[in-house]
Protein backbone atom coordinates (compact mmCIF):
# COMPACT_ATOMS: atom_id res chain seq x y z
CA UNK A 1 0.00 0.00 0.00
CA UNK A 2 1.20 3.49 -0.76
CA UNK A 3 1.58 6.23 1.80
CA UNK A 4 -1.55 8.07 0.74
CA UNK A 5 -3.83 5.05 1.05
CA UNK A 6 -2.73 4.65 4.69
CA UNK A 7 -3.11 8.37 5.38
CA UNK A 8 -6.42 8.77 3.59
CA UNK A 9 -7.84 5.65 5.23
CA UNK A 10 -7.00 7.01 8.68
CA UNK A 11 -8.05 10.62 8.11
CA UNK A 12 -11.46 9.59 6.72
CA UNK A 13 -12.26 7.25 9.62
CA UNK A 14 -15.11 8.86 11.53
CA UNK A 15 -13.81 7.68 14.90
CA UNK A 16 -10.79 9.96 14.53
CA UNK A 17 -13.06 13.00 14.33
CA UNK A 18 -14.97 12.37 17.58
CA UNK A 19 -14.07 12.04 21.23
CA UNK A 20 -11.13 13.18 23.32
CA UNK A 21 -7.86 13.61 21.49
CA UNK A 22 -9.54 13.58 18.07
CA UNK A 23 -8.19 15.37 15.01
CA UNK A 24 -9.92 18.77 15.58
CA UNK A 25 -8.74 18.86 19.22
CA UNK A 26 -5.14 18.07 18.40
CA UNK A 27 -5.12 20.51 15.49
CA UNK A 28 -6.38 23.23 17.84
CA UNK A 29 -3.74 22.35 20.44
CA UNK A 30 -1.11 22.39 17.68
CA UNK A 31 -2.19 25.79 16.40
CA UNK A 32 -2.29 26.98 20.01
CA UNK A 33 1.39 26.13 20.59
CA UNK A 34 2.36 27.63 17.25
CA UNK A 35 0.17 30.73 17.57
CA UNK A 36 1.20 31.68 21.10
CA UNK A 37 4.90 31.26 20.27
CA UNK A 38 4.59 33.24 17.05
CA UNK A 39 2.76 36.06 18.80
CA UNK A 40 5.35 36.35 21.58
CA UNK A 41 8.19 36.18 19.05
CA UNK A 42 6.56 38.88 16.91
CA UNK A 43 6.02 41.20 19.87
CA UNK A 44 9.72 40.92 20.70
CA UNK A 45 11.26 40.76 17.23
CA UNK A 46 9.30 43.24 15.09
CA UNK A 47 10.01 46.33 17.28
CA UNK A 48 13.61 45.19 17.74
CA UNK A 49 14.13 44.64 14.01
CA UNK A 50 12.50 47.97 13.12
CA UNK A 51 14.66 49.76 15.70
CA UNK A 52 17.86 48.19 14.36
CA UNK A 53 16.84 48.95 10.77
CA UNK A 54 15.99 52.57 11.60
CA UNK A 55 19.10 53.37 13.63
CA UNK A 56 21.55 50.95 12.00
CA UNK A 57 22.86 49.96 15.42
CA UNK A 58 23.38 46.25 16.02
CA UNK A 59 23.02 45.36 12.34
CA UNK A 60 26.08 43.08 12.36
CA UNK A 61 24.68 41.15 15.31
CA UNK A 62 21.32 40.66 13.60
CA UNK A 63 22.85 39.39 10.35
CA UNK A 64 25.09 36.92 12.17
CA UNK A 65 22.21 35.72 14.30
CA UNK A 66 20.32 34.89 11.12
CA UNK A 67 23.12 32.58 10.01
CA UNK A 68 23.67 30.96 13.38
CA UNK A 69 20.07 30.12 14.27
CA UNK A 70 19.71 27.50 11.52
CA UNK A 71 22.38 25.40 13.20
CA UNK A 72 20.35 24.97 16.41
CA UNK A 73 18.82 21.49 16.44
CA UNK A 74 15.27 22.07 17.66
CA UNK A 75 14.86 18.55 18.96
CA UNK A 76 17.94 18.98 21.16
CA UNK A 77 16.75 22.28 22.62
CA UNK A 78 13.33 20.79 23.29
CA UNK A 79 14.51 17.66 25.10
CA UNK A 80 17.10 19.65 27.05
CA UNK A 81 14.40 21.93 28.46
CA UNK A 82 12.10 18.95 29.00
CA UNK A 83 14.76 17.28 31.16
CA UNK A 84 15.88 20.45 32.95
CA UNK A 85 12.41 21.92 33.62
CA UNK A 86 10.40 18.66 33.74
CA UNK A 87 6.77 19.04 32.65
CA UNK A 88 6.58 22.83 32.35
CA UNK A 89 4.88 24.72 29.47
CA UNK A 90 8.14 26.66 29.20
CA UNK A 91 9.79 23.58 27.74
CA UNK A 92 7.76 23.93 24.54
CA UNK A 93 7.34 27.71 24.64
CA UNK A 94 11.02 28.66 24.88
CA UNK A 95 12.32 26.59 21.92
CA UNK A 96 9.44 27.69 19.67
CA UNK A 97 9.94 31.38 20.53
CA UNK A 98 13.71 31.10 20.16
CA UNK A 99 13.26 29.60 16.70
CA UNK A 100 10.63 32.11 15.58
CA UNK A 101 12.55 35.25 16.58
CA UNK A 102 15.46 35.25 14.06
CA UNK A 103 13.48 35.18 10.79
CA UNK A 104 11.07 37.86 12.05
CA UNK A 105 13.90 40.02 13.40
CA UNK A 106 16.06 39.78 10.29
CA UNK A 107 13.27 40.49 7.82
CA UNK A 108 11.97 43.45 9.86
CA UNK A 109 15.53 44.78 9.96
CA UNK A 110 16.16 44.27 6.25
CA UNK A 111 12.79 45.73 5.32
CA UNK A 112 13.35 48.95 7.24
CA UNK A 113 17.06 49.24 6.43
CA UNK A 114 16.25 48.83 2.73
CA UNK A 115 13.90 51.81 2.54
CA UNK A 116 15.01 54.17 -0.24
CA UNK A 117 17.05 57.02 1.36
CA UNK A 118 15.23 59.44 -0.94
CA UNK A 119 11.92 58.44 0.61
CA UNK A 120 13.41 58.96 4.07
CA UNK A 121 14.63 62.43 3.10
CA UNK A 122 11.22 63.28 1.69
CA UNK A 123 9.51 62.22 4.93
CA UNK A 124 12.01 64.28 6.88
CA UNK A 125 11.53 67.27 4.59
CA UNK A 126 7.77 67.02 4.95
CA UNK A 127 8.30 67.67 8.66
CA UNK A 128 7.57 64.21 10.04
CA UNK A 129 8.95 63.36 13.47
CA UNK A 130 11.15 60.27 13.82
CA UNK A 131 8.20 58.33 15.23
CA UNK A 132 5.97 59.36 12.30
CA UNK A 133 8.68 58.40 9.82
CA UNK A 134 8.94 54.95 11.33
CA UNK A 135 5.24 54.21 11.71
CA UNK A 136 3.85 55.92 8.61
CA UNK A 137 6.65 55.49 6.07
CA UNK A 138 9.25 52.88 6.97
CA UNK A 139 7.05 50.16 8.46
CA UNK A 140 4.43 50.27 5.67
CA UNK A 141 7.19 50.07 3.04
CA UNK A 142 8.85 47.21 4.95
CA UNK A 143 5.55 45.37 5.39
CA UNK A 144 6.00 42.83 2.56
CA UNK A 145 9.33 41.72 4.06
CA UNK A 146 7.98 41.74 7.62
CA UNK A 147 5.26 39.38 6.40
CA UNK A 148 7.83 37.12 4.75
CA UNK A 149 9.61 36.90 8.11
CA UNK A 150 6.37 36.08 9.92
CA UNK A 151 5.54 33.45 7.29
CA UNK A 152 8.93 31.77 7.62
CA UNK A 153 8.59 31.78 11.40
CA UNK A 154 5.02 30.44 11.19
CA UNK A 155 6.11 27.57 8.95
CA UNK A 156 8.88 26.82 11.37
CA UNK A 157 6.77 26.80 14.53
CA UNK A 158 3.98 24.78 12.91
CA UNK A 159 6.57 22.18 11.89
CA UNK A 160 8.30 22.20 15.25
CA UNK A 161 5.11 22.08 17.30
CA UNK A 162 4.94 18.48 16.05
CA UNK A 163 7.84 17.29 18.19
CA UNK A 164 6.34 18.95 21.27
CA UNK A 165 4.25 15.77 21.49
CA UNK A 166 7.48 13.80 21.93
CA UNK A 167 7.97 15.31 25.40
CA UNK A 168 4.41 14.48 26.42
CA UNK A 169 2.34 17.43 25.21
CA UNK A 170 -0.48 17.33 22.62
CA UNK A 171 -0.79 18.52 19.06
CA UNK A 172 -0.76 16.63 15.78
CA UNK A 173 2.53 14.99 16.75
CA UNK A 174 0.53 12.94 19.30
CA UNK A 175 -0.83 10.75 16.48
CA UNK A 176 2.66 10.31 15.03
CA UNK A 177 4.50 9.40 18.23
CA UNK A 178 1.70 7.19 19.60
CA UNK A 179 1.51 5.40 16.26
CA UNK A 180 5.28 4.90 16.11
CA UNK A 181 5.30 3.56 19.69
CA UNK A 182 2.54 1.05 18.83
CA UNK A 183 4.03 0.05 15.44
CA UNK A 184 0.79 1.26 13.88
CA UNK A 185 1.52 3.15 10.67
CA UNK A 186 -2.02 4.44 9.95
CA UNK A 187 -2.10 7.27 12.55
CA UNK A 188 1.53 8.11 11.70
CA UNK A 189 0.65 8.50 8.02
CA UNK A 190 -2.58 10.34 8.84
CA UNK A 191 -0.85 12.71 11.25
CA UNK A 192 1.73 13.55 8.60
CA UNK A 193 -1.07 14.29 6.12
CA UNK A 194 -2.75 16.63 8.62
CA UNK A 195 0.61 18.39 9.11
CA UNK A 196 1.08 18.87 5.38
CA UNK A 197 -2.42 20.35 5.08
CA UNK A 198 -1.62 22.73 7.98
CA UNK A 199 1.62 23.79 6.29
CA UNK A 200 -0.18 24.60 3.04
CA UNK A 201 -2.88 26.49 4.97
CA UNK A 202 -0.18 28.63 6.60
CA UNK A 203 1.13 29.56 3.14
CA UNK A 204 -2.38 30.38 1.91
CA UNK A 205 -3.12 32.41 5.05
CA UNK A 206 -0.04 34.58 4.55
CA UNK A 207 -0.70 35.00 0.82
CA UNK A 208 -4.18 36.34 1.69
CA UNK A 209 -2.82 38.45 4.54
CA UNK A 210 -0.23 40.03 2.24
CA UNK A 211 -3.00 41.06 -0.18
CA UNK A 212 -5.05 42.57 2.64
CA UNK A 213 -2.44 44.56 4.55
CA UNK A 214 0.23 45.60 2.05
CA UNK A 215 -0.60 49.13 0.84
CA UNK A 216 -2.13 49.14 -2.64
CA UNK A 217 0.51 51.56 -3.94
CA UNK A 218 3.32 49.19 -3.01
CA UNK A 219 1.58 46.25 -4.65
CA UNK A 220 1.15 48.18 -7.88
CA UNK A 221 4.80 49.21 -7.81
CA UNK A 222 5.98 45.63 -7.37
CA UNK A 223 3.89 44.38 -10.26
CA UNK A 224 5.31 46.99 -12.62
CA UNK A 225 8.90 46.19 -11.69
Amino acid at each position, binding site marked *: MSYFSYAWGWVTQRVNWHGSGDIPQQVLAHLGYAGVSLLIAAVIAIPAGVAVGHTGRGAVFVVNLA*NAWRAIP*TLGLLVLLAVELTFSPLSWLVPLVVLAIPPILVNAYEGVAGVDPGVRDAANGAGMTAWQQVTRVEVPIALPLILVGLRTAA*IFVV*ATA*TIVAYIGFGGVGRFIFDGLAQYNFSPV*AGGALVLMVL*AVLVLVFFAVLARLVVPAGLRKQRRSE
Partner: protein
Amino acid sequence: MNWSFIPSHISDIWQYTRDTAQLGVLSALFGLVISLPLGIAAARWRWFYPPALTVVNVLYAIPAIALFIVLIPSLGLTDTNVTVALTLYSLCVIFPNVVAGLHAVPDSVRQSATAMGYGALRRLVQVELPLAVPVIIAGLRVAMVSSISLSSIGQLIGVYSLGYYFIDGYQRAFPTEIYIGLVLIIALAVICDLVLVGVRRVLTPWMARS
Protein backbone atom coordinates in the same frame (compact mmCIF):
# COMPACT_ATOMS: atom_id res chain seq x y z
CA MET B 1 27.38 17.66 33.15
CA ASN B 2 29.03 14.31 33.64
CA TRP B 3 32.45 14.71 31.99
CA SER B 4 33.53 11.10 32.46
CA PHE B 5 30.84 10.09 29.96
CA ILE B 6 32.90 11.52 27.09
CA PRO B 7 36.12 9.45 27.30
CA SER B 8 34.22 6.23 27.95
CA HIS B 9 31.96 6.75 24.91
CA ILE B 10 34.37 8.43 22.56
CA SER B 11 34.06 5.83 19.77
CA ASP B 12 30.24 6.05 19.81
CA ILE B 13 30.42 9.85 19.79
CA TRP B 14 32.75 9.74 16.80
CA GLN B 15 30.49 7.28 14.96
CA TYR B 16 27.34 9.39 15.48
CA THR B 17 29.21 12.53 14.47
CA ARG B 18 30.25 10.83 11.22
CA ASP B 19 26.65 9.68 10.62
CA THR B 20 25.42 13.24 11.10
CA ALA B 21 28.10 14.65 8.80
CA GLN B 22 27.28 12.08 6.15
CA LEU B 23 23.52 12.73 6.24
CA GLY B 24 23.91 16.52 6.25
CA VAL B 25 26.74 16.97 3.78
CA LEU B 26 25.55 14.39 1.24
CA SER B 27 22.01 15.82 1.24
CA ALA B 28 23.25 19.36 0.65
CA LEU B 29 25.58 18.21 -2.16
CA PHE B 30 22.84 16.12 -3.82
CA GLY B 31 20.59 19.17 -3.54
CA LEU B 32 23.23 21.23 -5.33
CA VAL B 33 23.69 18.65 -8.10
CA ILE B 34 19.93 18.59 -8.79
CA SER B 35 19.52 22.37 -8.43
CA LEU B 36 22.12 23.26 -11.05
CA PRO B 37 20.35 21.81 -14.13
CA LEU B 38 16.93 22.85 -12.77
CA GLY B 39 18.16 26.38 -12.06
CA ILE B 40 19.85 26.68 -15.46
CA ALA B 41 16.61 25.55 -17.11
CA ALA B 42 14.54 28.02 -15.06
CA ALA B 43 16.91 30.89 -15.86
CA ARG B 44 16.73 30.08 -19.56
CA TRP B 45 13.02 29.33 -19.96
CA ARG B 46 11.44 31.93 -17.72
CA TRP B 47 7.91 30.49 -17.85
CA PHE B 48 9.26 27.46 -15.96
CA TYR B 49 10.36 29.47 -12.92
CA PRO B 50 7.11 30.69 -11.25
CA PRO B 51 5.41 27.26 -11.13
CA ALA B 52 8.66 25.62 -10.02
CA LEU B 53 9.07 28.23 -7.28
CA THR B 54 5.54 27.55 -6.00
CA VAL B 55 6.25 23.80 -5.80
CA VAL B 56 9.52 24.52 -3.98
CA ASN B 57 7.83 26.87 -1.45
CA VAL B 58 5.12 24.32 -0.64
CA LEU B 59 7.65 21.50 -0.35
CA TYR B 60 9.81 23.57 1.99
CA ALA B 61 6.82 24.26 4.26
CA ILE B 62 6.27 20.53 4.90
CA PRO B 63 7.63 19.54 8.33
CA ALA B 64 10.65 17.21 8.20
CA ILE B 65 8.98 14.53 10.27
CA ALA B 66 6.01 14.45 7.85
CA LEU B 67 8.33 14.13 4.86
CA PHE B 68 10.23 11.23 6.50
CA ILE B 69 6.91 9.49 7.14
CA VAL B 70 5.68 9.97 3.58
CA LEU B 71 8.83 8.22 2.36
CA ILE B 72 8.59 5.26 4.79
CA PRO B 73 6.44 2.97 2.57
CA SER B 74 8.89 3.29 -0.33
CA LEU B 75 12.24 3.75 1.44
CA GLY B 76 11.67 2.29 4.91
CA LEU B 77 13.33 3.47 8.13
CA THR B 78 16.71 3.95 6.46
CA ASP B 79 19.29 6.65 6.07
CA THR B 80 18.29 6.77 2.39
CA ASN B 81 14.90 8.03 3.57
CA VAL B 82 16.42 10.86 5.59
CA THR B 83 18.93 11.69 2.84
CA VAL B 84 16.18 11.94 0.22
CA ALA B 85 14.05 14.20 2.45
CA LEU B 86 16.98 16.47 3.34
CA THR B 87 18.01 16.57 -0.34
CA LEU B 88 14.53 17.87 -1.18
CA TYR B 89 14.85 20.63 1.45
CA SER B 90 18.32 21.52 0.16
CA LEU B 91 16.91 21.72 -3.34
CA CYS B 92 14.28 24.20 -2.10
CA VAL B 93 17.01 26.50 -0.77
CA ILE B 94 19.65 26.15 -3.53
CA PHE B 95 17.45 26.16 -6.65
CA PRO B 96 16.13 29.77 -6.25
CA ASN B 97 19.70 30.92 -5.59
CA VAL B 98 20.98 29.31 -8.80
CA VAL B 99 18.28 31.17 -10.74
CA ALA B 100 18.97 34.45 -8.90
CA GLY B 101 22.72 34.07 -9.45
CA LEU B 102 22.31 33.50 -13.19
CA HIS B 103 19.79 36.34 -13.55
CA ALA B 104 22.21 38.70 -11.82
CA VAL B 105 24.87 38.26 -14.54
CA PRO B 106 24.92 41.64 -16.32
CA ASP B 107 23.73 41.64 -19.93
CA SER B 108 26.89 43.47 -20.99
CA VAL B 109 29.00 40.57 -19.71
CA ARG B 110 26.85 38.07 -21.58
CA GLN B 111 27.07 40.10 -24.77
CA SER B 112 30.84 40.49 -24.44
CA ALA B 113 31.19 36.73 -24.14
CA THR B 114 29.05 36.23 -27.23
CA ALA B 115 31.05 38.86 -29.11
CA MET B 116 34.24 37.01 -28.20
CA GLY B 117 32.82 33.95 -29.93
CA TYR B 118 31.58 31.95 -26.92
CA GLY B 119 28.79 29.53 -27.74
CA ALA B 120 25.82 29.23 -25.39
CA LEU B 121 27.19 26.24 -23.46
CA ARG B 122 30.74 27.56 -23.13
CA ARG B 123 29.43 30.96 -22.05
CA LEU B 124 27.31 29.27 -19.39
CA VAL B 125 30.13 27.13 -18.00
CA GLN B 126 33.00 29.61 -18.26
CA VAL B 127 31.28 32.96 -17.67
CA GLU B 128 27.79 32.81 -16.18
CA LEU B 129 28.18 29.98 -13.65
CA PRO B 130 31.47 31.32 -12.22
CA LEU B 131 29.85 34.73 -11.74
CA ALA B 132 26.88 33.09 -10.03
CA VAL B 133 29.11 31.14 -7.62
CA PRO B 134 28.77 33.51 -4.62
CA VAL B 135 24.95 33.40 -4.71
CA ILE B 136 24.89 29.63 -5.29
CA ILE B 137 27.29 29.01 -2.40
CA ALA B 138 25.22 31.28 -0.16
CA GLY B 139 22.32 28.89 -0.82
CA LEU B 140 24.50 25.83 -0.31
CA ARG B 141 25.64 27.17 3.07
CA VAL B 142 22.06 27.55 4.29
CA ALA B 143 21.20 24.08 2.96
CA MET B 144 24.18 22.41 4.57
CA VAL B 145 23.74 23.97 8.01
CA SER B 146 20.01 23.21 7.99
CA SER B 147 20.54 19.62 6.83
CA ILE B 148 23.10 18.92 9.54
CA SER B 149 20.77 20.33 12.17
CA LEU B 150 17.62 18.64 10.78
CA SER B 151 19.26 15.23 10.42
CA SER B 152 18.79 14.77 14.18
CA ILE B 153 15.00 14.59 13.62
CA GLY B 154 15.67 11.38 11.66
CA GLN B 155 16.45 9.71 14.96
CA LEU B 156 12.71 9.86 15.74
CA ILE B 157 12.15 7.28 12.98
CA GLY B 158 15.24 5.34 14.06
CA VAL B 159 17.92 6.68 11.70
CA TYR B 160 21.10 7.04 13.73
CA SER B 161 22.97 10.34 14.08
CA LEU B 162 23.89 12.67 16.92
CA GLY B 163 20.12 12.89 17.39
CA TYR B 164 20.56 9.61 19.26
CA TYR B 165 21.89 11.61 22.21
CA PHE B 166 18.71 13.72 22.27
CA ILE B 167 16.45 10.67 22.39
CA ASP B 168 18.59 8.66 24.81
CA GLY B 169 19.36 11.70 26.98
CA TYR B 170 15.66 12.47 27.21
CA GLN B 171 14.59 8.90 27.98
CA ARG B 172 17.24 8.55 30.69
CA ALA B 173 16.84 12.17 31.90
CA PHE B 174 20.59 12.52 31.38
CA PRO B 175 21.40 16.10 30.22
CA THR B 176 25.08 15.30 29.54
CA GLU B 177 24.12 13.40 26.39
CA ILE B 178 21.85 16.21 25.21
CA TYR B 179 24.61 18.79 25.66
CA ILE B 180 27.04 16.59 23.72
CA GLY B 181 24.54 16.32 20.86
CA LEU B 182 23.83 20.06 20.82
CA VAL B 183 27.48 21.13 20.94
CA LEU B 184 28.66 18.65 18.31
CA ILE B 185 25.84 19.39 15.85
CA ILE B 186 26.42 23.14 16.11
CA ALA B 187 30.21 22.67 15.85
CA LEU B 188 29.82 20.43 12.80
CA ALA B 189 27.53 22.98 11.15
CA VAL B 190 29.97 25.82 11.84
CA ILE B 191 32.94 23.82 10.47
CA CYS B 192 31.10 22.89 7.26
CA ASP B 193 30.01 26.51 6.88
CA LEU B 194 33.61 27.72 7.19
CA VAL B 195 34.75 25.14 4.61
CA LEU B 196 32.17 26.49 2.16
CA VAL B 197 33.33 30.06 2.78
CA GLY B 198 36.84 28.84 1.93
CA VAL B 199 35.60 27.13 -1.25
CA ARG B 200 33.90 30.34 -2.32
CA ARG B 201 37.11 32.30 -1.84
CA VAL B 202 39.06 29.83 -3.96
CA LEU B 203 36.43 29.92 -6.72
CA THR B 204 36.07 33.71 -6.75
CA PRO B 205 39.61 35.11 -6.50
CA TRP B 206 38.45 38.45 -7.97
CA MET B 207 36.18 39.22 -5.00
CA ALA B 208 37.11 41.25 -1.94
CA ARG B 209 38.10 39.01 0.97
CA SER B 210 35.20 39.76 3.26
